[in-house]
């Protein structure tokens, strides 16, 4: 039985209940299959990140339940779960420790948990970095390599802990589109090797359909799944998918749903995030 099944059941999140009582997540339910790439698409500031924070254990939830492989992460009586190496977050602006070299970053997890002695961790770390095409930059600091490479070091750092799920918060937003296309392929490559569940938040519909097995389109704030699309393009996928007919049909099918939400956010003058 492969691992990493996440089920979100009727989750509600209200910020500052007594004061402004801003509802960020409104009775959201979503099942994410084990080993699946599930894409969450929605306009900026619609509460997607709040959902991710709840799964990761950074925020509590007002009501509802989130479980992973049957084990309760958070629920009504335990509103906040503990962050752990079974579900690791890759942050939007990156969170590699700038004061540690890339290799030191990669081995941080296992060494901290005491799972691996430093020597084995270094060996495994070098192997995984080489595997992801990062050989040669082990001893550079994150600030010295390109943003695309930093992204991949961060994903390798997560995978060093053999997590059940990767939670990605718009990881490729700041990259220019040429580098972005490269990063998509690199992520798929890593996914095919490690078959870890991926919970991926984005604004970019094209990115969602190109990468995802399933795409959940969320409403503007407070966010809940408005439409869940199954992308029946076979994996492994590569760049030619982008110009295939089926891909364009899927885009058309979901475009007006997404556009509608974007326009609502646009008019409301919703500032970024």
């Amino acid at each position: 039985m492969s691992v990493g099944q996440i089920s979100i059941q009727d989750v509600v999140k209200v910020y500052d209940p007594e004061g402004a009582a801003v509802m960020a997540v409104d009775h959201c339910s979503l099942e994410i299959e084990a080993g699946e790439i599930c894409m969450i698409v929605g306009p900026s500031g619609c509460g997607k990140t709040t959902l991710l924070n709840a799964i990761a254990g950074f925020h509590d939830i007002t009501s509802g339940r989130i479980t992973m492989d049957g084990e309760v992460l958070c629920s009504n009586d335990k509103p906040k779960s503990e962050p752990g190496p079974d579900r690791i977050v890759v942050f939007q602006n990156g969170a590699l420790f700038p004061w540690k070299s890339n290799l030191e970053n990669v081995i941080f997890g296992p060494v901290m948990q005491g799972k691996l002695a430093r020597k084995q961790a270094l060996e495994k770390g070098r192997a995984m970095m080489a595997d992801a095409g990062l050989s040669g930059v082990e001893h550079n600091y994150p600030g010295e390599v390109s943003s695309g490479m930093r992204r991949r070091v961060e994903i390798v750092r997560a995978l060093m802990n053999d997590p059940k799920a990767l939670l990605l918060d718009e990881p490729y937003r700041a990259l220019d589109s040429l580098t972005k296309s490269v990063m998509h392929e690199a992520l798929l490559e890593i996914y095919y090797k490690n078959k870890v569940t991926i919970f991926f938040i984005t604004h970019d519909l094209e990115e969602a359909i190109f990468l995802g097995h399933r795409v959940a389109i969320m409403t503007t704030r407070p966010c809940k799944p408005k439409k869940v699309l199954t992308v029946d393009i076979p994996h492994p996928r590569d760049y030619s998918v982008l110009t295939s007919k089926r891909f364009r049909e899927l885009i058309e099918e979901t475009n007006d749903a997404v556009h509608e939400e974007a326009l609502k956010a646009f008019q409301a003058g919703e500032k970024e995030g």
Partner: protein
Amino acid sequence: MAETSIRPKIIPGEIVVEGVSKSYGATQFRKEVVQDCSFKIERAKLTVMVGPSGCGKSTLIRLLAGFEQPTEGSILLDGEPVTEPSRDRLVVFQETALFPWMTTWDNILYGPRARGELSRESLQFGEFLLNKVGLQEFRDKYPGQLSGGMQRRAELARAMINNPKVMILDEPFRGLDAMTKELMWEYYARLYEENRRTNFFVTTDIDEAVFLADRILVMSNIPTQVRAVIEVDLPRPRKLLDIFENDRANDIKKQALSILHAEAMRSFSRGSKAAADFVDAYLKRASRA
């Protein structure tokens, strides 16, 4: 209020760039950024320059805007050499250059006020532009209180009030999220199609280039040169969905992509950070093909 036409009478705004080179530093630390680069920006056309990031496009923009002088070669606007910044060639920068300490309205009026040409018409024209970019309610707000998309529109209005011969845009939509970006593409295309002012648009995003351009200049890596010129004969007004389905558009995209790959390959040998990732994909795809 009558829709005053903002189409200028005779159509100015043709830029000819001839054998331009630009380098910084001296002796062994000299860095050639632009090298023997020549191209033409046709009047009343939307020319898009696309190239890998870090390939010297911004340097070319600074040369076109007159912020810097080329080491060799010449740049002519309607026959006149470009020597210093002027209202004829206005730049919309990648990060917003709205003055944070001025309200949106004061920002828009900055040009006429600075030149002492603040007349009733320019006020009226400012009002017209403010409505056109849909920022009436945000008139007294400071730029910091506007969202990314709104800042871009305010900046376009601030440039248009000066009626420049050429609008120069340096990856203006890069910071925006994907959805707002696509909305801004259509919005910007409408703006261009209305007054057909010469526009020079720089980007790293091929989809953006294909959707917006009448003509695409595909640039090489440092030292920058024009690698290819592709005419985009798609009909106007352009709609995102039909461009997306249009096969001609896809061919143009493929053509541009293959050239850009070759460019990124070469820059890899010089260890340029930005292109390194680009090459990985090419090598993988080449090996898989």
